[in-house]
């Protein structure tokens, strides 16, 4: 009885967590313009979505927003992977006290409310006269993604035999050869996980993008959807779009999870 109750409780929590998403997913497969009105199964909204994506291009359209999102996410994830990895190596080689201090500083931006991060970056960019639009949003995304890369590279450094770097030097490698031929290959799994994590962080960010995009009319998916919803109800075609984004993020998260589990299994052997 007690067990049954515990089971029910878990399912209830999961239901509450996922109900909004399922709601969107379910109603993306019907024609009704009004959300919550089921008029039978149909994939018409998906058809419309892809039709619009192909037909309507140019500034301010959904297609442009998707391209912006992907380009910013790719650039930001690549840059933060490099930055995060270099920082992780540097911090790893500090003494214990400084290492703890740096990791603490690294964790603060991650728990800092996005709105505050967004507003402060916005003010900073104005102060520094950073070009609004692509530049500011990309820089902002790099700064929010880097801590996550650092966190996913760090465990690889702890797993690595610290003597391998010295062994490379001993065998005649210069420090930079040792970095490229010995360190990076061993850190690569952590870097890839970090990259994927940064990529998803960038795609789903709203608050920071909203504050840093400026007034040049740059839209990413999240800001596009927000503007659309405010204009008088959500355009029905965005339901299938959100379903697709959810599916993409889900797949990426599963990939990260599998990778982590696999590297944990290798560790055990």
């Amino acid at each position: 009885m007690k067990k049954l109750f515990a089971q029910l409780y878990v399912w209830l929590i999961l239901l509450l967590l996922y109900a909004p998403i399922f709601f969107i997913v379910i109603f993306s497969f019907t024609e009704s313009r009004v959300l919550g009105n089921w008029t039978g199964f149909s994939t018409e909204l998906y058809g419309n979505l892809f039709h619009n994506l192909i037909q309507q291009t140019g500034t301010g359209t959904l297609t442009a927003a998707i391209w912006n999102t992907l380009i910013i996410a790719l650039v930001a994830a690549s840059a933060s992977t490099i930055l995060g990895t270099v920082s992780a190596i540097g911090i790893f080689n500090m003494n214990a006290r400084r290492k703890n201090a740096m990791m603490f500083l690294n964790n603060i931006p991650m728990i800092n409310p996005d709105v505050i991060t967004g507003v402060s970056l916005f003010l900073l960019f104005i102060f520094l006269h950073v070009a609004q639009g692509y530049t500011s949003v990309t820089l902002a995304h790099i700064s929010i993604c880097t801590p996550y890369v650092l966190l996913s590279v760090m465990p690889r450094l702890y797993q690595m035999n610290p003597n391998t770097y010295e062994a490379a030097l001993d065998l005649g490698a210069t420090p930079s050869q040792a970095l490229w031929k010995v360190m990076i290959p061993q850190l690569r799994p952590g870097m890839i996980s970090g990259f994927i994590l940064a990529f998803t962080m960038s795609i789903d960010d709203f608050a920071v993008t909203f504050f840093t995009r400026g007034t040049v009319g740059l839209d990413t998916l999240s800001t596009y959807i927000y503007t659309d919803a405010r204009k008088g109800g959500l355009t029905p075609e965005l339901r299938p779009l959100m379903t697709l984004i959810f599916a993409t993020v889900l797949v990426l998260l599963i990939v990260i999870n599998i990778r982590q589990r696999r590297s944990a299994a290798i560790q055990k052997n």
Partner: protein
Amino acid sequence: MSKENSIISIEHLTKTYGGKVVLNDINLEIKKGEFVTLLGPSGCGKTTLLRIIGGFRTPDDGVVRMDGKDLSGKAPNERPLNTVFQRYALFPHLDVYENIAFGLKLKHIPTAEIDRRVRKMLKMVSMTDYEDRDVDSLSGGQQQRVAIARSLVNYPEVLLLDEPLAALDLKMRKDMQLELKELHKNLGITFIYVTHDQEEALTLSDTIVVLNEGRIQQIGTPADIYNEPVNSFVADFIGESNILCGTMIEDCKVSFLGHEFECVDKGFGNNVPVDVVIRPEDIYIMKQTDHAQFTGTVKSCIFKGVHYEMFVDTDGGNEIMVQDYNAFEVGSTVGMIIKPFDIQIMKKERVCNSFEGVIDSPESVEILGASFPCKAHGLENGTSVKVEIDFKDVERQDNQEDGILAGEVHFILYKGDHYHITVRTDGPADFFVDTNDVWDKGDLVGITLNPENIRVIPVRRDE
């Protein structure tokens, strides 16, 4: 400066980590083709010394020369020597072949030549069929072979080995020892080997360098080190030994265990206190007592595989360790003989605690930063003095707070009828204590002194 066939010469090497002296004025000549072992307990500085030779650490002072050329300022990749690391340090993302070829590829050696050399190495370490294997799939011993091959493929003149066998099980370690010895013989290059395992050092080396607390204690062949240790540290560290207090009566005559013995040592002077080392296998033990030099009662007898290890209470009130192929019944009376050649005599490193002190009141003296009450000495405050306390007069308090000075038990030496204990204090010198109580290494103790037992000796200042 460098001698005829010396390949590495180390002069006045000093290294300090965070105020702690790790290497203290090390001087060492290593000959071409020699198998040299740096031996010592953990923390003695042996690994630091090896890492300085390899170029991974910079000394505070002193130079390392190779073939007469100063190596200071040369990065590890610029030094013509290679290292085999403690935990192998193989590259996990490369297979066996690529691991071994790593150094050669960096030097842009033609592929055919690389292939020839890698295969030769694989054959030498008996790993011929393993070239495509993932290094993580190899056993510890196989990984070690790959690590050795990876170093040797570069044809170094000197190979540094940092406890390479420490992670292997006993059987594997014994096999690898023999293989290393064989490898050294065939290659003819210089091996510098670091280990804390005295048996390994005795088995492998041409020369052993015994290190303790950053200083070289003794340099010699395995037989020298074993048979003629220069101090009680070496005697205690290498093999089993009975270290006893004795008195050199005159040349070739020494007294210990309450008896007089004939020995072969000369030049210590007459009636001088000395330390005597007797190896447990050098004591002849028998049932008859009439022709024995001294007698005793067997206290315990344990079978050790080849021999029996017995503790015997002697008629002079000491406890000694004896090893023999025959077992003697516990409780039985036995006779014992020690031959003159088997008695190793060492000058006592110290006869009492001796510190530099300063008078800080009419009835106290300051040593090692603490003020100890003593007898009225009639000296002015601020006078520099020498303070002496006999080993047996140092009193221990179990709680550090109860002592005038706090310390940690650092080294324990059993001397037949008492323990000689080194207590490390925060000050610049150690306290030495003779006691019958059992203390454990690492115990935190307080030290007090009876004012009656403190000898204050004024130091004459030449002005």
